[in-house]
């Protein structure tokens, strides 16, 4: 998921300082040989920055992602659903923590990344700026949003940076589980009453287009990811991933008996692919620019958690200091 950073204009600044050319040649040779780059290895500064941006954005997305689903924690319609939703949200917090740790190996602290998130300096996936308005949204997020995330993330398991690639292996396993859970929620709705099926359809109507926008701009408009491709951080282009996702998802929608809200969607017998209509990139840009339905609320919620929790962090630090002082005194005595 959450690979918007790959499309960030700053990525193209892959300049290498003078005198580092030889190191860079060796570095690229390793990349070309599919070797993993580890935290203590030499790497171009721009490679490091790109990864920090991408991994922290990914972590931030997991953390912000807890909010729209958390909106239904207290209203899940059965105890089993309540438990699985809470477990999913817990997994997402775990992914955030795990990814922050991977980014820390590149020389940035978790505090700094958290600060960048709440000050708006670091991004998170725009998909979480949409509201969760019905129980069906919990199913749809699992199916479409986590589904799109998995499409994006499976290639990241082969990413050239070792800690990120290894983190992704675990994250992908859990995400696949979430996707199945989401689909199963929708399956229950679609096998249920007319009202439940309508609830599922209404949810797909809202989430379909934002989900396919998660793959980022068309390749023709996304010249910035070339460098990430060369570095093998990114492995598959936006459009190829999007097509793969759509081809996998459309039959699943049909199995549920749901309509994809795209009148131009049709199967091309020759190519074996589903062709889809025009994406409204204006909406994408507006949400990215901060004008989505929930941009302000999401950041405000995280800022509140941080501000309200400051005294807790201060207390933990103060206690740790006192403990250390007591231990030192004891030793001295």
């Amino acid at each position, binding site marked *: 998921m959450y690979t918007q950073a790959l499309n960030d204009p700053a990525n193209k600044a892959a300049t290498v300082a003078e005198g580092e050319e030889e190191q860079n040649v060796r570095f690229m040779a390793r990349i070309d040989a599919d070797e993993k780059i580890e935290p203590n290895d030499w790497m171009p500064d721009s490679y490091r920055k790109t990864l920090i941006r991408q991994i922290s954005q990914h972590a931030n997305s997991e953390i912000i992602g*807890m909010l729209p689903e958390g909106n239904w924690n207290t209203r899940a319609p*059965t105890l089993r659903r309540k438990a699985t939703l*809470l477990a999913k*949200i817990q997994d997402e*917090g775990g992914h*955030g923590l795990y990814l922050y740790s991977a980014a820390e190996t590149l020389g940035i602290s978790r505090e700094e990344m958290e600060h960048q998130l709440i000050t708006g300096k670091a991004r998170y996936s725009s998909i979480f700026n949409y509201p969760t308005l019905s129980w069906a949204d919990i199913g749809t997020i699992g199916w479409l949003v986590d589904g799109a995330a998995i499409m994006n993330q499976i290639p990241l398991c082969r990413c050239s940076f070792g800690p990120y690639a290894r983190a992704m292996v675990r994250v992908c396993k859990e995400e696949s589980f979430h996707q199945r859970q989401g689909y199963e929620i929708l399956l229950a709705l679609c096998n*249920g009453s007319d009202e439940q099926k309508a609830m599922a359809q209404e949810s797909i109507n809202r989430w379909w287009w934002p989900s396919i926008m998660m793959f980022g701009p068309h390749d023709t408009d996304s010249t910035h990811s070339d460098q990430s491709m060369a570095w093998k951080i990114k492995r598959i282009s936006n459009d190829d991933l999007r097509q793969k996702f759509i081809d996998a998802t459309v039959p699943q929608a049909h199995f549920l008996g749901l309509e994809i809200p795209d009148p131009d969607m049709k199967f091309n017998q020759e190519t074996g692919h589903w062709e889809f209509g025009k994406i409204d990139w204006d909406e994408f840009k507006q949400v990215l620019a901060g004008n989505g339905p929930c941009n302000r609320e999401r950041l405000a919620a995280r800022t509140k958690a941080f501000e*309200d929790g400051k005294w*807790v962090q201060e207390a933990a630090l103060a*206690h740790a200091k006192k403990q250390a002082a007591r231990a030192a005194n004891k030793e001295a005595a």
Partner: protein
Amino acid sequence: MLAANVDETLEIDREALFQLALRLGDTSLILGHRLSEWAGHAPILDEDIALSNLGLDLIGQARSFLTYAGEVEGRGRDEDQLAYMRNAPEYRNLLMVELPRGDFAFTMVRQFLFSAFQLPFYQQMMQSRDKTLAAIAAKAEKEMAYHLRHSSQWVVRLGDGTKESHERTQNALNSLWTYTGEMFETDASLKALIEAGIYCDPASIRETWNKSVDDVLQQATLTRPETGWMQSGALTGRHSEHLSHLLAEMQSVQRAYPGLKW
């Protein structure tokens, strides 16, 4: 009128056993629900994860107890019908767990006071002559050991942290103290279950609880409040103002679309 898993030599009032299973299930459910409210809003990311984890344990316990309650009742109600289709006066949870989550100090002090009771309680319940309750207790005991450790550590950190954290934690303790008596309460039905070896006598846990509480409060530099009047209502379903709000939210989907599968 015997429940299936109870030693058949015992004469047990099915209604009393049903009420006990509700008391245990409701208490776990409501506290689990309160903990789930923190997900995404905790003071540090590690606690988003930890509090969800504690909540999950409690919701899991609740499911076991409520499923059993439905079996004992014998009217075909499952865990969801019991959780989602009863009104506040039919709930049998301790009042302490339904109070709003408050700040992080309130949440942790509550978790600590509750876990310090629940751990030795489940340890004793593992010996219950009701095999189902004993089995649930055996699983829950391991979970409560972690809950007690986690919450104790936080109470110590917060109590012995800064002036602000100390005050918040002492205030939480002072507010919650009046709700601790209920954990030890019994009525005629519970006494009969104690006699029958189904329920453990909470009085026998008092000493262990006192010791856990005193140890942690001492490390946390907190003052144990004077024991005065204790709030009560779980046994009769007379709750605080907060439970019906919680249930209105929790039950909203089920109540809006009754009788459907989710």
